[in-house]
């Protein structure tokens, strides 16, 4: 098993005819993902990669192909529209890759999702992958992953690839890797993903990769302490970041004491997580915790 994406995932790619969309749709197909449809307004009726129908609207894609998951390659200014379109069409998992979505657009989308059944991953995230199910819904390099029993959840993209490749190099496979995104407002947070991993019988341990900004890691620590039953290995990026300066991600900015890496590490340690001090040691720490 795995969480969020698996063998039953039927993917529609929004923006499939664009440069980025078509490139990554191909990589997902190559990895084994069931890409059943594409959507590009104005390009409905085309066929992608010799067999995947392109629709004008997500609604049609869902009706005609049974798509249940959407991967958005839509520029940030149009992401609100595309996310709402997917949610309104009843897509269950919506993955928004775009960086630079205006925060009030995200606020509107999240407000809309309150009363809907859809789950949003992102924005500003690499997506998610379940190697055992050969299902990749995102932009991560598929080859570094390995099927296995460690869950990964992270606010970052390349830092997650780094962690995954450390794991794979040590022969430790992953159940699902979820990039939740680097924006201040995101659809799915650490606690949401931890709760899913907790119930997943095929996940033994979770690697949690946080960063400066906000207090989401403290909420995760609280949850780990009170309700989470599996070991957690954590790394928080940005111990050397100065206060008040945005470190790339819109969400990575120290605006108060809780937002520092130090405060987050303290909370996680106190909750029983295995806190990794240096990013090079994530894999080794997991190996040692699993070995116990």
């Amino acid at each position: 098993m795995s969480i969020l994406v698996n063998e039953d995932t039927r993917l529609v790619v929004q923006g499939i005819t664009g440069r980025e969309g078509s490139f990554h749709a191909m990589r997902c197909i190559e990895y084994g993902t069931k890409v059943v449809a594409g959507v590009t307004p104005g390009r409905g009726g085309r066929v992608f990669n010799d067999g995947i129908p392109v629709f004008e609207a997500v609604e049609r894609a869902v009706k005609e192909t049974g798509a249940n998951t959407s991967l958005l390659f839509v520029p940030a200014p149009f992401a609100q529209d595309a996310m709402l379109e997917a949610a309104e069409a009843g897509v269950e998992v919506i993955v928004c890759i775009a960086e630079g979505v205006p925060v009030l657009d995200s606020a509107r989308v999240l407000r809309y999702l309150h009363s809907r059944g859809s789950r949003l991953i992102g924005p500003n995230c690499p997506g998610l992958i379940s190697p055992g199910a050969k299902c990749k819904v995102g932009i991560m390099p598929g080859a570094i992953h390995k099927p296995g029993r460690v869950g990964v959840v992270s606010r970052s993209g390349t830092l997650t690839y780094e962690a995954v490749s450390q794991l794979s190099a040590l022969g430790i496979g992953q159940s699902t890797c979820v990039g939740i995104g680097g924006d201040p407002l995101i659809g799915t947070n650490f606690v949401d993903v931890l709760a899913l991993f907790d119930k997943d019988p095929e996940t033994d341990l979770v690697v949690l990769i946080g960063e400066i900004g906000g207090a989401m890691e403290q909420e995760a620590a609280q949850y780990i302490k009170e309700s989470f039953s599996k070991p957690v290995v954590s790394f928080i990026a940005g111990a050397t970041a100065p206060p008040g300066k945005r470190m790339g991600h819109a969400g990575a900015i120290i605006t108060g004491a809780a937002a520092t890496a130090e405060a987050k590490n303290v909370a996680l340690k106190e909750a029983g997580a295995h806190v990794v001090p240096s990013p090079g040691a994530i894999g080794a720490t997991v190996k040692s915790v699993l070995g116990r």
Partner: protein
Amino acid sequence: MPRGQVASTPSEAEAVCRDLGGKAVVKAQVHAGGRGKAGGIKVVNSPQEAHDFAASLIGSRLVTAQTGPEGVPVQKVLVEEPAQVARELYLALTVDRAFQGPVFIASAAGGMEIEEVSATDPEKITNEGVDIAVGFQPFQGRRVSHALGLETYQVRPATRIMTAIYKLFMDQDCSLVEINPLIVTANGNLVAVDAKINLEDDALFRHPELVSLADPEQEDPLEVEASQSGISYVKLKGTVGCLVNGAGLAMATMDLVKEAGTAPANFLDVGGSADEDKVAKAVNIMLSDPSVKRILVNIFGGILKSDVVARGIVKAYSQREAKIPLVVRMQGTNVEEGRQILADSGLNVSFASTLIEVEEKLKTALP
């Protein structure tokens, strides 16, 4: 808002002060909070005093808690009529992560930095989240007003101010609207003495008319240059320049540099879709920083190919005839080709395959 006028010269400031009746408040016009504390605001009691204080500010650089150590240049001052202050309040609207929407932050301890109040007297701060589905409501204005200890007759004007802030915030896609202090005058009026509005960069495409208001002079020139090329760059105080793709990995790389016993000269995320020129630009920016003694390249390639990164590095180095040594760790697509290009370039490069190796290389090759 109090009466007042912007002045670009000391004598203009003197004239405005005279027009206001001889007493005024003179404020440095800069894009940074914390002006008052930093000596950028003064109550003056004569036109001459306005002249002298303006003369001391205009042309100087102001260093506040929110600027870098270099400060920001002051080119203009605002000369306003002074208010008889009974109380100073704090009122701001920002997007809250946990609430997932706009939240008013109000405090009876105006004039102070809100972070400070939050650390020392958190119970003095009121938060009021607004549901964007229905917008800011008068009952919320009453609640905030009561929390601020306002009188019944002040509730309506206070609510009007909050309604206006909310409208401004939503219409213009702000990330912060802050009035600090919002003063209660001796006769009970509410006056916004100092206001700060931050626009959200990501939403500027919706407000082309506001883009021209940005004042690059108020920012670090290298950061402006990077930002114009789509590179995330923040100047830091160490000596190791860091070229990384991805914000998380870039922060982790800085942390690694620290673990190795030295310090990063910058945060730099070149992005996932960089080409040779963008990499060269990023390297160039680091090479223009005199404090950079070494450059660490940490690229986890997915879309970004190692050979492209290598060519960009060589290009920048040869343009500047730079000699600064490099520690290079590249993983992903076309790694061998990329290493070969750097190895053939004649540059002082040492290669690493893992972050552990990077840490070792940094330790053994301290400048």
